[in-house]
């Protein structure tokens, strides 16, 4: 031990504060770089599609809408732009939700998808689709996300309850999540069995995950949820970073850990429900994005949280591009792309964690 704690005097000339401030500047630079990547991917997403528009047409369509043909304008403004924007905001919501979940559950394998919260949102949506619930005369466009939120919040609370009462070890929480996932999928299967053909089609749309039905109204709603949630997340960023010291330490610092967990899981439910309400189940973004952010920026949550949101936005935006380009002329549901990319990464994470468990 003595040898590995012995000081190396070469690095002591610069004060720790200066080095720390330098590392913060570096992280801000990396965050800016991520913003640029997301912007680049977004523009490429708008430019790609079966209509084979040239870059000039796309840029003209975006910045001088009157200078292009009506069909081009419709393709860019009514089809591609909402989809590309939705990919960015949904990805950001899922990335942020995954990062917060991994911190408060102290579990790198936690995410809205792996712990069944996405499946719970699907169940909520399926119940509304099949039974046509109405509440105070509200339209289904509001009832459906609301039901998705209520179910995902219940699933988050169930995970919290189970992990607190039966152990919060990495594998325990993930196994609870898997059990929940299977259980909810079975109920959704049962709903599909009793539903009519149209309802089944809508449920299938949910479970595949697609950006194709996006409109600017949906984009605005999801973006609003993200912009409302982010300041609350950032406000708790010190507490979440301090929570990494351990629960007892955090308690002794005056952090109300149970309240923090509850607030975060509620926020995760809102973010997940808002993100999935209009695109259906999109897996693995919430799991993988925080790991990318952690690798680039570490776990100071002032950088980790926005980094995870940006990584999520980038991943889903890239997946959206891939969904259009893999088979020319065919738009593959983006949930299939994220699953195909995410599953190998998930397995890699399990193997990596397995060595340290």
């Amino acid at each position, binding site marked *: 031990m003595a040898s590995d704690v012995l*000081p190396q005097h070469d690095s002591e000339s610069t004060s720790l504060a200066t*080095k720390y401030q330098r*590392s913060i500047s570096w992280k801000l630079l990396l965050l800016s770089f991520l913003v640029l990547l997301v912007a680049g991917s977004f523009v490429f997403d708008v430019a790609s599609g079966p209509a084979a528009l040239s870059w000039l047409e796309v840029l003209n369509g975006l910045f001088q809408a009157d200078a292009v043909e009506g069909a081009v304008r419709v393709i860019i403004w009514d089809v591609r732009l909402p989809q590309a924007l939705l990919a960015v905001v949904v990805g950001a919501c899922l990335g942020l939700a995954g990062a917060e979940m991994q911190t408060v559950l102290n579990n790198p394998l936690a995410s809205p998808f792996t712990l069944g919260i996405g499946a719970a949102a699907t169940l909520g949506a399926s119940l509304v689709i099949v039974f046509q619930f109405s509440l105070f005369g509200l339209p289904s466009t509001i009832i459906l996300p609301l039901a998705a939120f209520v179910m995902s919040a219940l699933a988050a609370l169930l995970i919290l309850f189970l992990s607190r009462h039966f152990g919060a070890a990495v594998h325990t929480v993930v196994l609870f999540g898997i059990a929940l996932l299977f259980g909810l999928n079975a109920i959704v299967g049962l709903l599909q069995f009793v539903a009519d053909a149209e309802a089944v089609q809508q449920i299938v749309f949910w479970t595949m995950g697609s950006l194709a039905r996006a409109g600017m109204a949906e984009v605005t709603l999801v973006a609003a949820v993200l912009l409302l949630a982010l300041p609350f997340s950032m406000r708790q960023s*010190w507490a979440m*970073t301090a929570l990494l010291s351990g629960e007892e330490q955090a308690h002794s610092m005056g952090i109300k850990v149970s309240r923090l967990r509850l607030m975060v899981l509620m926020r995760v439910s809102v973010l997940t429900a808002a993100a999935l309400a209009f695109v259906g189940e999109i897996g693995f973004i919430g799991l993988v994005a925080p790991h990318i952010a952690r690798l680039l920026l570490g776990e*100071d949550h002032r950088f980790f949280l926005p980094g995870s949101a940006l990584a999520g936005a980038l991943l889903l935006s890239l997946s959206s591009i891939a969904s259009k380009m893999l088979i020319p002329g065919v738009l593959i549901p983006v949930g299939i792309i994220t699953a195909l990319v995410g599953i190998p990464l998930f397995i890699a994470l399990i193997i990596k964690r397995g060595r340290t468990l």
Partner: protein
Amino acid sequence: MSTLQVDNLSVRYGKHQVLNQLNFGPVKAGQLIGVIGRNGAGKSTLLKAMTGLVPHQGKVSLNQQPLALLGDPQRSSQLAYLPQTLPQPSTLTAYEMVYSSFRAVAANVPRTQIEASLEAVFKQLGIHHLALRRLDQLSGGQRQMVGLAQVLTRQPQLLLLDEPTSALDLHWQLNVLQTVTQTLKQRQHIGLIAIHDINLALRFCDQLMVLADGKVLAMGNSREVLTSDLLRQAYGVEARIETCSQGRPIVLCDSADMGEHAAW
């Protein structure tokens, strides 16, 4: 100048009474109290109860003010607790971890003041070179030193340390206890340390509190309080208290009693 008084402190886990009407104090400023006793005697529970981590009865007063009446921010600014468990490995650097815990407790303290405090503590503990390394790249002992930096930086009036040297080698055990005692004396704060190594406790603590079955078996000046009878009663061992060549008392254990004191 801090003072500490504990009155009728009791903790029960289900049917098991872990601490039973514990009384001690007033403890004077600048003193380090060593809490010793067998596994399960209630050492960690005492520190947790004083921190407010476990439900308890009784009163813990710092400077004549009951801690239970303070709000969370006020209490956490006056006391700091280092748990027995080591800070978990993460991609945070040691500096980030200590900085963020300071920030979480004291949101309004100027950045420069926090940075100066961190610089001083990292240097004092001799872990300046570890500051910008990630916790998942540090050994258990190194992480324990980071945990200690985390509580010392906050300059609490009451410092509660649960086995702070459990993962450290001899060099760092002495380093930590020297730093803690010097800090307490300089700042006139009070410390309680749960510790298994009786000879370290004898050397560095001003007073020793011997716990057994949730009660204070004996408490007093560390040079005087220990006797062979007390060690037999508290630990179930045959031991002698000798004086070393420098005039300090040391405990030499001869054998463990396999009879009535053997069971937990």
